[in-house]
Structures are given as C-alpha cells and as structure tokens.
C-alpha cells in the first residue's frame, strides 16, 4: 500500500448530510464514477489529493532503492529489465500527479509539499537495498503488497484515479513477476546467492507488512474513506490476504519467513502471524527510518539541481510563444 495514514474527516451520518452530499453518496453507492467537473464534498477532494499525492510521491521516491542497483545489475538483461521497471515507476508517478491535477492541485505544489516534509510517501522506501536479492524482494514483496491494495482501487469512485490504477496494475503485476524471477535465481543459486535471498527476506518481511498501515483498531480514518470508496478494504484484511498468498511462495523458494509465530489457522483459513513493530513504523513515518534523510535528500537535490534546466526550458518556451504571437499579428 503506497498510501498509509491518509488523514480524512470523520464519517458523516446520512441525517447530517446536505442534499448535495446525499446525492453524491447515492452516486458512489450506485457504483458511478465521480469525474473532475462533478460536484464533490470538500473532504472527498482533500482526502483524494492527500492519498493520490502520497501514492505519486511513493512512486518517484520508490525509484531510488531500485535505482541504487541499476549500475550494478549482474547481466545486461537484468539491467534492462530493472531500468524498464524503474522507468515504469516514474511513469506511474506521472499518471498519478495528472490524476491529482484534475482535483485542482498542481504537480509543483505537491512536490513542494513532499520536499518540505508536509506530505509523506510510503514507509517502505526508507529501507536500504543492500544486496542484489533486494531487487527480487522489492519486486516480489513490496510490489506484491502494493498490488494487494491497488487491484481493488481500480474500482475506486474517482474516475481519473481509477483509470490510473488500471494502467498501473497491469505494469505492477509484471514487476512482481520479475521480482519473483530474481528471487528464484537467487534462492536456487549458489550458497552465497541463497544467503543473499534469505537476508533480503529477513529485512523486507516486516517493512512489507507495514505497508498496509496500522491495524484496523488503530486506524481511525478509514470509515469515511471506505464510504466514499476511496479505500476499498481495511488494512488488516489486505495484510492477511498478502500473508496468505506470500507464505506458500516463500516455501517454494525454500526461504524462511522471520516469524516464529507464523502458523496456518484452519479455523480462519489463513495464517496467524506476528504484527510488525509499530513503534518502528511510526519512527519511519516521522522521518527517523534508516534512509529517510538520503531518500528525501536525493529528491530535493534532484529538484534543486534541475532548477536551471526547467527555467531554461520555460524561458525558451515563453519566447517561442511570443514569436508565434508576433508572427500571427504580422500575418493579419
């Protein structure tokens, strides 16, 4: 899940709604898509901007942990695949910033909020990628967890967001498969490769579980988002589904999930598992994770170093527009 802890309003009861709000809720309940020019409650718009913005930021910050290995990819094919994948993530950022723009907020405004720390991105990208198997673990576990959330979001009520998610999901499932393919090579490779694979598993398991956000009992903002179909499933539902699907995949690889309490529960037809360390999660969200400074620092540096480049292109474009205006005046 690339959007965690998205703040939203407390849920309104039907009696407290204005006639416009009731009509809006009826459309959402009927499964209609809300489009940019339609009336929408201010809270809906604000929550969507936060959620889509956080998701967009996660895509572009998410380029960095994998970008870390592009120049060290072990074969030309792996290098090409990784480059294509990280490029896809930048593309996802582009779709999502565009979706957010339909709600009246510019990409530059959102980036300013990312750079100043006012907006967040997924906690997962504040963990380091330390060996090549991490490229497998990121694709398999991180993209795998993201897909759990993003597949239902294809049905979200806001049209542009839904359409962006449909495109993104197609690419994400490819990403997850390429991650698993790296993991297979590593887990079935030399003893050193298998050690790297297990090390990646050990480091990424709990951070991947954290991607779904805090437990439902501590997640106070979900109800309104679910009524608006901005959020489709609860955090715990998605986390359980992820664990259920991932455990057999880990078993196939011969990797050990670092959780002594992991066990099949016949009654609930799912695995019991340990909760991640939520105090660590909140520290990472606050900015104290292993790579927060590096990740945000890299983004800010790229933006600041690129200022002259953007200014140069803008200045040229303005003059070119002036020239066109002058030419059309002269032609009249």
């Amino acid at each position: 899940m690339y959007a965690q802890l998205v703040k939203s309003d407390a849920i309104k009861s039907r009696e407290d709604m204005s006639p416009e709000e009731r009509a809006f809720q009826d459309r959402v309940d009927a499964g209609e898509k809300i489009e940019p020019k339609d009336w929408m409650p201010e809270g809906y718009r604000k929550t969507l901007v936060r959620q889509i913005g956080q998701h967009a930021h996660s895509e572009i910050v998410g380029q960095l942990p994998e970008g870390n290995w592009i120049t060290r990819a072990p074969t030309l094919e792996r290098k090409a695949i990784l480059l294509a994948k990280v490029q896809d993530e930048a593309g996802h950022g582009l779709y999502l910033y565009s979706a957010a723009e339909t709600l009246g907020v510019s990409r530059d405004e959102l980036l300013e909020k990312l750079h100043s720390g006012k907006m967040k991105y997924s906690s997962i990208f504040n963990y380091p990628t330390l060996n090549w198997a991490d490229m497998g673990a990121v694709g398999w576990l991180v993209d795998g967890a993201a897909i759990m959330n993003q597949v239902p979001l294809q049905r979200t009520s806001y049209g542009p967001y839904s359409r962006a998610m449909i495109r993104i999901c197609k690419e994400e499932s490819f990403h997850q498969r390429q991650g698993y393919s790296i993991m297979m090579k590593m887990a079935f490779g030399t003893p050193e490769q298998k050690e790297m694979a297990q090390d990646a598993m050990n480091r990424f398991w709990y951070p991947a579980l954290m991607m779904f956000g805090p437990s439902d009992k501590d997640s106070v903002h979900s109800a309104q988002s679910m009524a608006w179909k901005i959020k489709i499933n609860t955090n715990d539902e998605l986390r359980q589904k992820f664990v259920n699907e991932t455990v057999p995949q880990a078993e196939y690889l011969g990797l050990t999930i670092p959780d002594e309490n992991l066990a099949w529960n016949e009654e609930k037809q799912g695995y019991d598992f340990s909760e991640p360390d939520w105090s660590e999660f909140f520290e990472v969200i606050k900015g104290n994770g292993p790579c927060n400074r590096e990740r945000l620092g890299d983004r800010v540096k790229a933006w600041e170093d690129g200022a002259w480049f953007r200014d140069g292109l803008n200045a040229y474009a303005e003059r070119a527009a002036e020239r066109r205006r002058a030419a059309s005046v002269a032609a009249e």
Partner: protein
Amino acid sequence: MAALETAATSVPEDSFVSDASLRPAFFEWLCRMGDNALILGHRTSEWCGHGPVLEEDIALANTALDLIGHTQMWLGLAGEVEGEGRDADKLAYLRDAMKFRNLLLVELPKGDMAVTMMREFLFDAFHYHLLTWLADNSKSPRVAEIAAKALKEVSYHLDRASDLVVRLGDGTEESHRRMQDALDLLWAYSGEMFVGDEVDAAMTQAGIAPDLESLRGEWETTVRDVLKEATLAMPAEAGFVHKGGKQGRHTEHLGFILAEMQFLQRAYPGASW
C-alpha cells in the same frame, strides 16, 4: 525495447561472421560499437530517479534502455565472430579496462544535465550518421540489420538531444552558460570519433563500415546547424586532443565504471543471475 525484440528474429546469412582472416579486426570493431553503447548507457542510467523533471527522468531511462539493447546486439555478434564462447554478458562483465574499446567521450562523468545532453548530442549526431551508413551500405547483413534496428531509436535520441541543446542554449543566461561550458569541455573529446586506425581501415576495405573521416562533414553540418540555433559558439577545431579509447587507453573514469558494473560477476564467478 530493442533487447526484447532481438530474441525472436531469425538470423540472416553472413559470411563475414565466419571469415577467419577478418576476425580480429571485425571483433575489435564490434566491441567498439558495443562498448560505446554500453558505457554511454551506463552513464545515462545514472540519472534514473535523479532527473530534473519527471518527463526527463523517463526519457533518460528510455535512452539508457535503448543503448543497453544495442549493447546486447553488438556484443552478442562480437562474441559470435570471436568464436571463443564469450557472449555479450561475458564481454561486458569480464573484460578489464584496457580491453574496452569505447570512445573517451562516453566514459566521462555525467556531470550536470548540460554535460549529459551535450555529450549525448555530439555522440548521437555521429552515431546517427554512422548507423545510417551501416544500415544502407554495410556488406555485412548482420551489421546492417543491427544498425537498422538501432537507428530507429538513435534517430529519436538525436531529435531529442538536438531539441534540448537548442532550448537550453537559447534558454536563460545560466542555461546558455552551462551549455557553452559543456560544449567547450566535450569538444576536445569529439575528434576521436573520426580518427580511423588499422581496424577501421580493414572494416572499410571489407565494405562493412564507412571511412570514418567521410562522416565528419555530415556530423559537422548537423552539429553546426543545431549549435547555431542554440546560439552556442562552436569551438575551434584544433582542440581535438583526447583519444585512445578505441585502442584501450582510457581516462581514469572507466576503471570505476567497471568496478561498479562488474562487481557481482567478479565477486561471484560462475553464478547464474
């Protein structure tokens, strides 16, 4: 995307590939083609996630991806010609710096976007004219085929690089200054593209590749036109001093590129990835 397309196509007959008398020169020449793409692709890929604006980040990754695809084709053919069981990966990952045959221009650090785009432009203009000749005229069907595939992408690289050189050259005072500085820095490395040696002479004689000197005029015209529109001053010709990459005498930078690029293959010999 070239990488994904190559696997499915059938291979044309090419007697040059098994011509023992031509083998050393042909192998060297193919390594030059492949290494230019590999090393420039590597430098370009360093931008991934760090571009000045999202669209440029995507375009740079795309360019790098194209170049890695070209590398797979050129070095793949080099391995076949050599006939000693080395494939593209073995050539890319298991040769040391003195065996690399790329131009010095492509191994220089990426610098700022001015250096990156000016370097790409100067190289693309050469690459475009070279590939055009190879696609149209090379007597080696395999070479012509690879060149035709690569040319589709390199035409776009040249368009994009030219466009950015013009916009940034004729942008703000700062972007103009940075572009001029980049041009002045890189100019002295651009002459190496046209300096032929006995390998080039053998390729020209066999009809596989053009006389490099014959490409200089077209390159200069392309470069001159773009720089003029970009309001940038073309440096004096006398500055073409840096060369040797094609023969394996490199700058200090290449060793670090290889240390990074080859790390896994060197640290875990024989592993499959």
